[in-house]
């Protein structure tokens, strides 16, 4: 876990800040949590690790790097999903059966006739905020993904970042046999 933490911080200078500043510590913790939620909730599945989304076999997921949404709108989209698209809702209570709708004025009854995808994992409100913070600070407004972005996501050793390195020659993994 510590290794991951250092990778997220990404530089020795930031590491010093991380170690000595309580405020930065909290912020970095939140970002780390946000990134972990981004992975666990499988945002990667459509938006990819870099958030750029793009074409896909299941249609295009919007680019979070190019998005113009602000934090409240991102939180709403995560919570409520986007009806008629592949973007699922991540809050268990988004579409209640009573007439106190949480999202777009819709209740569970409306979902019988219109399509809103349901996420594979539900997130709590704090988790939705953390993942929105992560998108705002680490993805939104960034240019093309680069090696530093990739290492911040996967860690130093990942082959997934080889494509951003020059002459990225890979050692073959060592298989292991159990008997």
């Amino acid at each position, binding site marked *: 876990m510590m290794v991951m933490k250092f990778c997220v911080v990404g530089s020795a200078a930031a590491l010093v800040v991380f170690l000595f500043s309580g405020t930065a510590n909290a912020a970095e913790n939140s970002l780390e949590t946000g990134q972990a939620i981004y992975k666990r909730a499988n945002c990667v599945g459509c938006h990819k690790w870099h958030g750029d989304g793009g*074409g896909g*076999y299941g*249609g295009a997921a919007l680019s979070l790097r190019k998005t113009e949404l602000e934090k409240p709108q991102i939180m709403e989209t995560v919570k409520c999903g986007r009806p008629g698209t592949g973007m699922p809702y991540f809050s268990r209570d988004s579409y209640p059966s009573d007439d106190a709708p949480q999202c777009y004025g819709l209740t569970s009854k409306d979902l019988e006739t219109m399509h809103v995808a349901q996420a594979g994992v539900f997130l709590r409100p704090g988790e939705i905020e953390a993942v929105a913070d992560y998108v705002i600070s680490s993805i939104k407004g960034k240019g093309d993904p680069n090696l530093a972005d990739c290492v911040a996501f*996967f860690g130093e050793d990942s082959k*997934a970042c*080889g494509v951003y390195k020059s002459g990225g020659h890979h050692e073959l993994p060592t*298989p292991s*046999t*159990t008997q």
Partner: protein
Amino acid sequence: MERGISYPYGRSSKSTRRFYVGGTALLLIFATAAFADDAPSVGPKAETPIVAKSPETTTQRLLDADKEQQNWITHHKTYNAQRFSTLDQINAGNVKGLKVAWTMQLGGVEGGGIWSHGGLEGTPIVEDGFMYVTDGWGSVYKVDTHGGLGRLLWKMDPKTDHDWAGAVACCGVDNRGVGLYKDLVISHTLDGRLIATDKETGQVKWQRQVADPDKGEVVTGAPLIVKNMAITGVAGAEYGIRGWIAATDLDTQKEMWRTFTLPKKGEPGSETWSGTNSEETTGGGSTWVTGSYDPISNTILWGVGNPGPDWDNAYRPGDNLYTDSSLAVDADTGKIKWHFQHTPNDPYDYDSVAENVLVDVDGKKIALEADRNGFGYAVDRTDGRFLWATPFVKKVTWTKGIDPETGKPEEYDAKKQVQVYNPEATPVRSREITDICPGNMGGKNWPPTAYNPLLKTWYVPVIESCNRITIKPETKANKPRDFFTGGGPSQPFRITGSVTAIDVTTGKVVGKHETPYPNLAGILATPDLVFSGEPSGQVYALDAKTLQRLWEFNTGGGVNAPPMTFSVDGKQYVAILVGMGGAWDKWFIDSTPELKKVQPGSTLYVFAL
């Protein structure tokens, strides 16, 4: 890119080896030094000594695989890819009594890259009672099936890099099985390696990087072993790769040949790419389904996938050879002998990766191919000449039909650079949304057909489908590891399935067994039965003539792999891997909403009377 691993393994020591295997998976012990010496006493004390030893898989045995009734030693059972077993202990008269004999939990369900979980799509290989299966991440399991039980002898985990490969696997974390060569088990990994594992010990003798995920290439198919070669196909057309088929010499680990499925400028076929975009900016022509082999003409037949970008055919004017084609290549050189293209300038993602089934009927040497575009094709396999085509799906909208003379779609116009076919049902840049039937998964996808030579009947695992294509024209060249599809599908329509029977003597559909969900499993044929499975969990047997369902068992998981049959200790078994993988539950699930309840899993089921 090659790395040989020296492995001091004297053949003489093998004859005296005995394996001792613990009675439960909990007792399995990790081998310590991976490539160290060959000390035989690796396991806990014997509960069951296994005295039998796996035989050498020779070229002659592979050529004569049909004569080994008890075995299944190559991916499609025999080189002709008929997936027909002559075993008849289990038959139409007694199949009602088929029960679970044993099961085994496998691994590989974990996700990676854009995938939340892996699945099972493999065909088990069985040689004299020893079974070899793979999971989605390429682990190979050797299972002893003697004595009415399944005992895991070893598991080889190739330590596939999940994020690297999983990010560019277009359609799931999948591996369709192994090949056998002499004393080796030959397998692929999603991250593009070809691995040779010692049959007896499970130790890796060598591995070689064949495909490169840095370019968007991954490997999901089982290797085809021909002579001293392993033939590898590649996936990645959705990421703009230039497809190929490659042959590796299994004795020297050197590449014998690599035949690209998209010609370079100046090569034959390049005239069918008439736009300014080259094979590098377009890409396509994946080869991710194991092909077949005709030893008499020394020809490998292999299916070729769609061009990229999938749905934007104005990006790539011309017929786009050899995409959407069946390809016949010389086994020794890889040189293309002939091709037959099904959907020129494909605007639908109707690839032709499907296996070619080699049958001899009425003196004709035929190659059968059930295409994603919804038609079953027969061509003369000596020269690729078209014989007939018949729709095996209930609904086709993209074309009025296949011209009985040319084998091309009726609307095909050789003078046009961008084909439109039926304009109402063809994605075009001028209209954002188009509904197509069959949907872009087909028709028929990778799950294999089977052919019963006694009945001269061909059984197709069908996805009865339409779906909606939203065009997003591509304006730039593709970038490595980025999706390059020119749009994408969505699923406003319910999708069902069938097993559809075609009489190969007439080319006509003679039966259809309809199912509530698409057939994502594939078919096994025996003298009077047809076996298949459903993504909702059922494994079932049909009467080969009437297609009436005679038996079923619900495995409780999603069936996404083909059944096979074998015999050991004189008793016949049916085996199938169960665990939903592939692209369905990620991209296509809205067409079958009930299947959202199917959980990932990884189980080997074996049935017996």
